């Protein structure tokens, strides 16, 4: 099966498979002691659904749990892995590691692993678009978690975006976890949508495990933002199927809750849908999986072959105009 002629729904399945393969391969590799990552296993539909609704002139901000957003945006898994391993061919030359990967060439900018950092910078990125920087008509999308919604900057960011009418799409992936704390310990039940609604911008709450539903909602929100230049808010209800950061035994996780959500795995759901529609058969599905695995295998080879940064470059890139400041 080739991407040419593939339907959009199938492409979304393919993208989710690639993300899953990437993250599971890294997890396996990390068992050997390499630095861990925050995976988005179980949340792939959020990334694929939203990012697929964006154009190249748009900007994306993400956080510690960024691999799905980056891959959905077309990032090279090899360069991502090289970054995770701290190698020169990584998107940030190995300086970032997994936690703050940005890729300007893809419009994935200013990733912060400070929870809420993305929310603090996003209005500025959107403001620059509004004030004429970048390609005309571009909008900004900021991905963040339910935990980030507890930070004060959430409130400040929403208020500024509303007040200044910024072309900014807030996407909260509500995955029920904030590291090792369940969301229910941190906020009332419908808090995220209620808080957002209090700011008076349009809010949609969507099943974050249904990539088609996410995609449809994102398309609508993006079109609306492009039409009137004002912010929109999407809450994507999903679940973190793996631990916070690898390795993590998830001993603190309620087994029933986890099982309920495992049964709603977004990849399987999308595959089931396509299988039921006859748009995919079992062989093709297996083939898609294999293609993804093969791409990620090659990526891992690339990453491991990538050189370490030269220690003599330690202080490069601290300041602009290197050399002016020693």
């Amino acid at each position, binding site marked *: 099966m080739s991407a040419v002629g593939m339907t959009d729904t199938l492409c979304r399945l393919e993208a989710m498979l690639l993300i899953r393969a990437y993250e599971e391969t890294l997890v396996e590799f990390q068992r050997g002691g390499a630095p861990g990552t925050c995976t988005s296993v179980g949340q792939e539909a959020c990334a694929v659904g939203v990012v697929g609704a964006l154009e190249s002139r748009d900007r994306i901000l993400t956080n510690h749990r960024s691999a799905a957003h980056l891959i959905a945006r077309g990032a090279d898994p090899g360069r991502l892995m090289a970054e995770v391993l701290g190698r020169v061919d990584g998107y940030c030359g190995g300086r970032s590691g997994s936690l703050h990967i940005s890729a300007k060439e893809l419009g994935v900018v200013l990733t912060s692993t400070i929870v*809420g950092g993305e929310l603090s*910078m996003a*209005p500025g990125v959107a403001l*620059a678009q509004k004030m004429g920087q970048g390609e005309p008509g571009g909008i900004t999308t900021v991905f963040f978690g339910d935990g980030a919604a507890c930070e004060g*900057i959430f409130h400040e960011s929403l208020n500024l975006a509303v007040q200044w009418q910024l072309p900014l799409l807030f996407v909260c992936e509500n995955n029920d976890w904030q590291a090792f704390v369940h969301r229910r310990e941190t906020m009332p039940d419908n808090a995220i949508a209620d808080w957002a609604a209090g700011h008076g911008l349009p809010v949609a709450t969507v099943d974050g495990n249904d990539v088609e539903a996410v995609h449809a909602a994102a398309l609508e929100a993006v079109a609306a933002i492009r039409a009137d230049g004002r912010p929109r808010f999407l809450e994507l209800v999903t679940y973190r199927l793996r631990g916070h950061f690898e390795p993590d035994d998830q001993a603190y996780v309620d087994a029933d809750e986890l099982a309920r959500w495992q049964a709603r795995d977004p990849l399987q759901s999308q595959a089931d849908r396509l299988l039921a529609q006859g748009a995919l058969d079992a062989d093709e599905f297996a083939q898609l999986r294999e293609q993804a695995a093969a791409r990620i295998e090659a990526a891992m080879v690339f990453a491991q072959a990538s050189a370490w940064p030269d220690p003599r470059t330690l202080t490069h*890139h601290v300041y602009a105009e290197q050399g002016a400041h020693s």
Partner: protein
Amino acid sequence: MTRMTIEQAIHQALAEEMRRDERVFLMGEGVATKRRDLMQDFGAARVRNTPLAEAIIAGTAVGAAASGLRPVVDLLFAPFLTYAMDALVNSAGKLRYLSGGQFDFPLVALSMTGSGWCVGAQHNHNLEAMFVHAPGLKVVMPSTAADFKGLLKAAIRDDNPVLFFTDLALLHQEGEVPDGADHLVPLGQAVVRRVGADVTLVSYAKTVGVCLQAAEQLQAQGIAAEVIDLRTLKPLDETTVLRSLRKTGRLVVVTEASGLCGMAAELAALAVTRAFDALRAPVVRLTGPDAPGASSWVLEQAALPTAEAVVEAVQGMLGDAVVVREALATT
């Protein structure tokens, strides 16, 4: 040359740079109220009152700076920077490096501080050293009208995030400022305000005046003090300081900020690590105490380094030197 207050110098710098480069814009709590003429000249899009929320003001500046604009944000009083620390320290200071140099952050964060207004420690806290300690940031704190204008213009043109501190007490002080929109003072260059061979007095902002006063008094006693105004705290002009130290062998650092891990510590460290052989006496730190700023006028005054204290410190140093010299002569 035109005579103007430091407040006017700042305003001119902003106006000129906004005129020169349309990517420059200004935001903060009340900037459009306070600088109404700029708002009228450059439009409401470029001179923006903000909600009362320092974290998002600073964060927005960071995002805008990385996206092609050149924001100047007025964060009012230095203690309010505590709300903006994530944006300044973790984002502006680190994301250039962590991204492997993908982004520049040409932004200027203005804030005010300094004693003399009885406002107490939540408005008056000289915490510039915190930003010197943080990587990726530049820090400026001038003392004269000409420098305020030239350094602010240079800061706006710099591709790095710059913290620009104004000592409140200087705002209405006047000085001669070179005419023309080309007057720039490069970041990272200290200036020798007074030449002398016996002792080096290093300071910045308001306390430069204290040093100059002290130098005047010392002169009357036949002691020639060299006075260095750092102007930029980071990058620090080590060359100018070291050159002076190699000549005088004696250092008094005078700051309103607390000494502990402050600029006074940094200067003393510079001396003892890089000019040890030249040193002829213990370095003296004359700084504010390790205490919050009190509101009461008498306490506020008691916390400030005075010209008298500088004079005394220098006399102490030279006295010792004389004693030592005499002792050596008699062996």
